[in-house]
């Protein structure tokens, strides 16, 4: 059965700052998956658990967060806080009998590096393998 996962990305403003370049066309040119819907946040430390859960309630098959490297966060500890909230949701998914890997945290350098596209493709492959959300 053909399945294109609905994936939600919450990305640090700085990490994704070049994603808006040329009105987003630059992302398309580097083959950023179209099924990944990106929400830019001022800092991933601003993300709340409820925001991540609401993404699943809203129909996401997978969710991931991209923040600054732990030792290079513009707001010092923002991405570390985000990682803890992602971990909390992973634990909750586990309690609900759902694959924890439906949500992940990534730490990437600022700017549009190849890794920004790589993790989007990685998540797409992983969530495709897991199948549709059980919710």
């Amino acid at each position, binding site marked *: 059965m053909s399945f294109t996962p609905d994936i939600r990305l919450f990305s640090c403003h700085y990490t994704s700052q070049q994603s808006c370049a040329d009105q987003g066309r630059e992302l398309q040119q580097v083959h950023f998956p179209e099924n990944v819907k990106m929400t830019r946040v001022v800092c991933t430390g601003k993300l709340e658990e*409820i925001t991540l859960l609401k993404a699943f*309630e809203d129909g996401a098959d997978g969710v991931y967060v991209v923040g600054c490297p732990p030792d290079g966060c513009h707001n010092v500890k923002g991405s570390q806080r985000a990682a803890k909230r992602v971990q909390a949701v992973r634990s909750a998914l586990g309690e609900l009998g*759902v694959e924890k890997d439906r949500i992940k945290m990534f730490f990437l350098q600022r700017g549009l590096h190849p890794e920004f596209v790589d993790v989007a493709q990685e998540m797409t492959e992983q969530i495709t393998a897991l199948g549709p959300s059980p919710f």
Partner: protein
Amino acid sequence: MIIAERKPLAEIIEMVQDCTKILVLACRGCVTVCSAGGEREAEILASLIRLGLKKAGKHAEVFDASLVRQCDKEYIEEIDQFKGQYDAIVSTACGVGVNFIANLRPQDNVFPALNTTFLGGSAEQGVWTEQCAGCGDCVLHFTGGLCPVARCAKSLMNGPCGGSVDGRCEIHPEVDCVWQMIYDRMGRLQRQEELTASAPIRDWSTARHGGPRKQVRGDLTVE
């Protein structure tokens, strides 16, 4: 404050599996401070209940709200504004709050979302430790302000015991021996000789051994 932690989700979802309209009710008292049952936690729990029930093939309307406290009658009455909107309340208050709702809302199903764990304080962000056992006969004036009832694993009144090693408890090696702390502190206060006095036999009837407790202050009652 009262410290609590969320119950396992499977336990909570089993409680409400046959409910179709669920009110997750936060308490803005102690459980907000210890991040177990405040508005943020109730909102998260409501979402998790929706997801859990949906995964189980069930649908329920789950919404969240909060009360100033769930341990006072006048605040419990605020539940009336949600009349008809729920067939079960999942309380994220401590056990006191759940009991108050049960006492005052005899027709309502109320379920506990938390395990109430102890009376304690915040040792550091995200870490809480037990400091008081609520035993009803405080001895802190004898012990330099450190409670042997709550903080000694054996609740000894004449410690330290032989299991105190290098200032640590034999039951929980990561825990400081409170009796060692008491002796050290009383020494610093130049009051160590007070610890040689014979203590009267303790009356434990003021603790849970005397059954459920009640306190009445005539100067505050309305009658």
